[in-house]
């Protein structure tokens, strides 16, 4: 937060809570202060849950004082992307086209797990409409802005989640990722975001964009925090048929040790460097990051990902088709009620044939098999998340965004990918490193990211906005 005396990460806050240095009420009120101060500019919240959050914070303090310790998330304020259901209020999906009765009065399983772990839900935050598209100023929702430069897009679709963590409106957030929607805002807002293995976290109570590509994941200030959140979010729930039966997470925080000896990391430069419009500092930042990973003990080797364009296209096609299939009946009646960015993109899903879609699924399977071969010679892959930092809202369209991002490759194959800050670019905007692993290697991915954050401090940088206003 703007107040340097407050803990920066969940891990630090957990220690401070137990040391009596802060209270959950104190942390939560500091979040409210940040929201009061910045939200008009940043457009993070759709709905604040101030009174219920304070009550939950007070309860957390009482529990901790009485010796009931629910773990590292106990008493920690979080923000929730407004496509995920919370009992406090309806889920709008940042749209005027939604069913207020959907999942009304209920928590999505992930929310129930966070609450059972003692987390404080501070409210629902802005998202691209139904997790796709761009803000439409004709619609009655805040326009989310990047705390690092409010003239720029914070990334999306988990825009409010990214901006809010970056500016201290909450200590962490839930986002979703279908083609990059956790990793892109994490990258642009200078925070950490994890798209874990597909099927590891239940998606019941989350409005779908592309059902075979969607993931709900944590957005945090540090990899250690993401590991703590994932440990709570992961694990089978029968409400979600996309999960392998009996799938379980792991105690990810215990897997973080800082030593990457014996870990082989492939670096894909071929598909990630040299793009027109790339930030001039991108390659240097990547080189520094690779050096840091090597310093942590990893063996690094240049490795090219197979079928990069093909899998990226398979992601976009699958997403469009599945999104259109979901919205078809509403779009038939209420086309113009959807935002321009959302409907112009999702409408393309109507134009694919069944054979096209089936072919895209085949390409996913072929690509996954080839990628599995790569992962037999390296343990992890590392590469930039995006080609440049956050773009200006001026002239921003979907084509420009697609040209900037390297994220969609990973959704069609379901591999875990972590995005973390790797330093600032030429214009002072954050750049981001992605670390990916084979399916269910989430622990190793987090371990590598945490090792990187022990040797670097990019993740501790805060937007100038916070310093300007002062403590």
């Amino acid at each position, binding site marked *: 937060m703007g107040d340097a005396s407050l803990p920066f990460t969940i891990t630090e806050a957990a220690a401070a809570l137990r040391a009596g240095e802060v209270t959950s009420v104190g942390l939560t009120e500091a979040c409210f202060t940040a929201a009061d101060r910045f939200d008009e500019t940043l457009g993070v919240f759709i709905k604040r849950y101030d009174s219920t959050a304070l009550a939950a914070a007070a309860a957390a303090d009482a529990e901790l004082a009485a010796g009931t310790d629910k773990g590292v998330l106990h008493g920690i304020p979080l923000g929730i992307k407004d496509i995920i259901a919370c009992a406090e209020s309806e889920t709008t999906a940042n749209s005027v086209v939604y069913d207020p009765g959907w999942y009304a009065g209920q928590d999505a399983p992930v929310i129930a797990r966070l609450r059972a772990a003692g987390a404080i839900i501070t409210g629902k935050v802005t998202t691209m409409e139904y997790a796709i598209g761009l803000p439409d100023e004709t619609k009655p929702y805040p326009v989310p802005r990047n705390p690092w430069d409010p003239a720029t897009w914070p990334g999306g679709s988990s825009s409010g989640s990214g901006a809010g963590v970056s500016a201290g409106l909450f200590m962490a957030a839930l986002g979703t990722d279908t083609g990059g929607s956790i990793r892109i805002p994490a990258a642009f807002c200078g925070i950490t975001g994890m798209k874990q293995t597909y099927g590891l976290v239940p998606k019941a109570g989350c409005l779908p964009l592309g059902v*075979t590509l969607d993931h709900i994941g944590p957005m945090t200030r540090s990899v250690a925090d993401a590991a703590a959140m994932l440990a709570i979010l992961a694990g089978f729930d029968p409400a979600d048929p996309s999960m392998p039966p009996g799938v379980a997470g792991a105690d990810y925080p215990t897997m973080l040790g800082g030593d990457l000896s014996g870990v082989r990391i492939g670096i894909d430069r071929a598909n990630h460097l040299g793009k027109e419009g790339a930030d001039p500092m991108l390659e240097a930042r990547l080189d520094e990051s690779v050096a840091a990973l090597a310093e942590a003990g990893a063996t690094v080797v240049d490795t090219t990902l197979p079928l990069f364009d093909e899998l990226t296209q398979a992601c976009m096609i699958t997403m469009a088709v599945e999104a259109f*299939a979901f919205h078809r009946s509403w779009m038939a009646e209420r086309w113009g009620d959807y935002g321009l960015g959302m409907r112009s993109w999702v409408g393309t899903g109507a134009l694919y044939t069944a*054979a096209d879609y089936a072919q895209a699924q085949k390409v996913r399977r072929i690509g996954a098999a080839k990628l599995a071969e790569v992962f037999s010679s390296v343990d992890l892959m590392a590469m930039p998340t995006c080609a440049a930092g956050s773009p200006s809202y001026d002239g921003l369209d979907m084509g420009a965004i697609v040209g900037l991002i390297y994220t969609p490759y990973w959704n069609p194959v379901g591999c875990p990918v972590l995005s973390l800050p790797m330093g600032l670019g030429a214009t002072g905007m954050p750049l981001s490193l992605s670390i990916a692993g*084979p399916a*269910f290697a989430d622990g190793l991915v987090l371990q590598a990211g945490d090792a990187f954050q022990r040797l670097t401090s990019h993740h501790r940088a805060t937007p100038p906005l916070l310093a300007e206003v002062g403590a």
Partner: protein
Amino acid sequence: MDAETTVRTLFTLAGVTPPEDEMAAFIEGYPATRASLDLLYAVPDTPLTDGILVFRPAD
């Protein structure tokens, strides 16, 4: 619904060219295909339902 335009367009997209007599049969049969699909679209709750194909990442 203009079955002829639709069927011809879909076959063009598919890269397949049935001869005219067979094209006529496809066009004649298409309304029944759409009617079958309409039956399926009438099933409630489907937008929120996952498809039967479950994607599993490589183990």
